[in-house]
């Protein structure tokens, strides 16, 4: 809430309420905007209070509210009640967009505000919030005319059609790689984390991009949640707020820790893992990420939320993403390739060690992506389209949600055993694998979850031996 008071005394202006530098500077912007907009800055003692006064505030989104509070203090015809204003002011009284409008609008609506005025650039994201009347104004003058009831602004309508998805991969564009595609389908269906290993140029990145296209559309509420995170980062230009496609993020391994998991010096911003919320985080060259980076992923992978602690407060961002990693099998990249690996054996061990510690035990499926022969790239075999696979994925997800309300990857260890409903043969198989393949307890549950997903894809109520054996084949501990 912005309050303004005009009192007798020497003309001056004070803004109080634990403000940051940007708000103190608002004094100059607002004053110029008011005068250039054709209004008079009151020649009195102006006190502006941002309430509640005890909370620190920052940013330029209060400019418009401050200007209207000052104007409203000397003008009873301005009806400000029940309307919120989120915009920055230019010196010529034009409204400028600010970041974080969507989450703020959601919060305003939750606190009973019914009308909101924003800059035109922010109109679409604000209009996503149900039950909020959103107006966009080009200038301060248009805003004032609206509030005086002289020239009402048009209400912003939500764009009906979500925009066509930006660049997304296509399964049919990848030739061959039958096993990798199958593993991607399983991962998409059960929400599992997946690691691809293979020589450079084998198509790991293409497969990862195609993976995004296998995921079903987000529910509207989930899409809003994602858009709110993007709004905080001011990244809605990269991702239109109305899109329903799950996000796909692929940060480079040189990303900072704060950039990856969230952080920042003054304002805490969500990181890549939160931008990948309800979507895919693709880490190419996984072994090139530092150990600290990978360690930092452990907590969010487990709890699906990330907490960034700062001096004054801890901030939590949602981070419910699927991890898709790609790595070379060894430093030269040709282990298991027909070209032959030229690495010293101990260097290979060292290289794999980088991965095994922090992140291996969060990987559900491990699949190798071989280099394709040139002739097979030209072969005209019919590859399945993403849309076809996506329908199977959707059906499998529905079965999981119907059973326990969550995807298999998110079911806790205790429940998995009961939910899997493994046949006695499949259970025997898994028990045997414990001793034979040195499966850890955690690995045991992971195999069980993947097997459950495989059965869901096949539409089977029980996990049979086939599904269990297939899940064992993709287990990630084979060469740890």
């Amino acid at each position, binding site marked *: 809430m912005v309050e303004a008071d005009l009192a007798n005394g020497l003309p001056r202006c004070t803004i109080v309420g634990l403000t940051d530098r940007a708000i103190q500077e608002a004094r100059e912007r607002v004053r110029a905007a008011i005068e250039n907009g054709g209004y008079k800055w009151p020649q009195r003692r102006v006190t502006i209070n941002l309430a509640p006064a005890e909370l620190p505030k920052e940013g330029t989104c209060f400019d418009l509210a401050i200007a209207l509070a000052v104007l409203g203090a000397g003008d009873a015809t301005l009806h400000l009640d029940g309307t919120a204003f989120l915009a920055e002011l230019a010196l010529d009284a034009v409204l400028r967009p600010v970041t974080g409008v969507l989450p703020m609008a959601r919060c305003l609506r939750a606190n009973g505000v019914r009308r909101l005025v924003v800059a035109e650039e922010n109109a679409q994201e604000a209009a996503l919030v149900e039950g909020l009347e959103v107006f966009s104004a080009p200038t301060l003058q248009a805003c004032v005319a609206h509030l005086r009831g002289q020239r009402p602004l048009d209400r912003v309508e939500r764009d009906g059609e979500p925009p066509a998805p930006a660049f997304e991969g296509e399964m049919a564009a990848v030739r061959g790689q*039958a*096993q990798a595609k199958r593993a991607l389908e399983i991962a998409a269906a059960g929400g599992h984390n997946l690691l691809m290993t293979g020589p450079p140029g084998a198509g790991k990145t293409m497969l990862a991009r195609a993976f995004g296209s296998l995921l079903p559309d987000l529910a509207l509420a989930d899409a809003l949640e994602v858009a709110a995170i993007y709004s905080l980062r001011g990244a809605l230009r990269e991702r239109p707020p109305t899109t329903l496609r799950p996000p796909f993020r692929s940060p480079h391994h040189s990303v900072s820790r704060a950039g990856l998991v969230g952080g920042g010096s003054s304002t805490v911003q969500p990181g890549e893992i939160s931008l990948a919320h309800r979507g895919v985080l693709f880490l190419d060259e996984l072994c090139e990420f530092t150990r600290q980076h990978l360690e930092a992923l452990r907590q969010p992978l487990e709890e699906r939320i990330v907490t960034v602690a700062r001096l004054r407060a801890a901030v939590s961002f949602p981070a419910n993403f699927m991890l898709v990693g790609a790595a070379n099998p060894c430093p030269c990249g040709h282990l298991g390739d027909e070209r032959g690996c030229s690495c010293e054996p*101990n260097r290979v061990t060292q290289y794999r060690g980088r991965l095994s510690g922090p992140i291996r035990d969060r990987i559900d499926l491990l699949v*190798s992506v*071989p280099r394709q022969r040139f002739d097979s790239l030209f072969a005209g075999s019919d590859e399945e389209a993403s849309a076809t696979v996506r329908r199977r994925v959707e059906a499998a997800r529905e079965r999981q949600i119907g059973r326990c309300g969550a995807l298999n990857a998110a079911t806790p260890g205790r429940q998995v055993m009961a939910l899997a409903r493994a046949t006695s043969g499949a259970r025997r198989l898994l028990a*045997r694998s414990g001793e034979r393949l040195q499966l850890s307890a955690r690995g045991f549950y992971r195999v069980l979850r993947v097997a459950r997903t495989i059965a869901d894809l096949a539409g089977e109520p029980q996990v049979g031996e086939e599904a269990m054996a297939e899940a064992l*084949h993709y287990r990630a501990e084979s060469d740890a």
Partner: protein
Amino acid sequence: MSAPRTLGPDQAGWPAGLAHLERPPESLWILGAELPGVPAVAVVGSRRATFAGLDIARSIGCELAGAGVQVISGMARGIDAAAHRGALEAGGSTVAVLGCGIDICYPQQHLQLRDDISAHGCVVSEEPPGTPPWKQNFPKRNRLIAALACAVVVVEATPRSGALSTARWAADLGREVLAVPGSIRSPQSAGTNLLVRDGARPFLGMNDLFEAVGELGNLAGSGAVGAGAASSSVRWRSLAPPLQEILRRMGPDPVHPDAVGSALGLPAAVVAARLGTLELAGAVMSLPGGLVARNY
């Protein structure tokens, strides 16, 4: 574990084979329960070996130990270590000849292996304790390996491998040299193929070794390394027919599951399930890099 001791040429237990050397060592440092004795066969090869090569070395070590033959090698990474391990697995005696002092473990990772070898055989060096693994010591070490053995089997070697120097020493000393032939495209078999071209006896199975070496002649007809394919089809006979079909299509060389799938015309899901079952049965192993190979 016994303490390191020295053995001089005039002492009992001095290996007779060393007399064939032009310049035999002045004394040997020995760590372990046993002494190098006869009959003994050296199994050597590259440090950087293929999985098939490692497996062959291991089975040769196993078979030799099972026949009561001592296995000699250099305790290096790769083939050497696999041969030692094979002999130990079969409960036999094995001798590691080092190029450094016997108190030094090179490579470091083989600490456990060195302890096992000294418990069931011995670790030998002509260098005094404390000598680091200097490069120039290894050719000298190779001549000891050749002299102590009555035959040398080279499993895999690049043309520049130290294993070829062992083979040369062996030929000079009149020991039988056998080489495991391999694909002409595999760099790891280039050295052994060269040996075969130059007159070494190709090693296709244990019989080749037993027939070639007089001391081992009585063992001829008992071994079965190269004939693994035949014996294993018996071993996996209890598996379901579709699983056996996959095994039949897989050679000893590692392949990618996709290759198995396209050869048999099976979808990836079925291939993965069958490979998982086979792996659990012990008939197939999955290798780093995502390939699978048959177990023999």
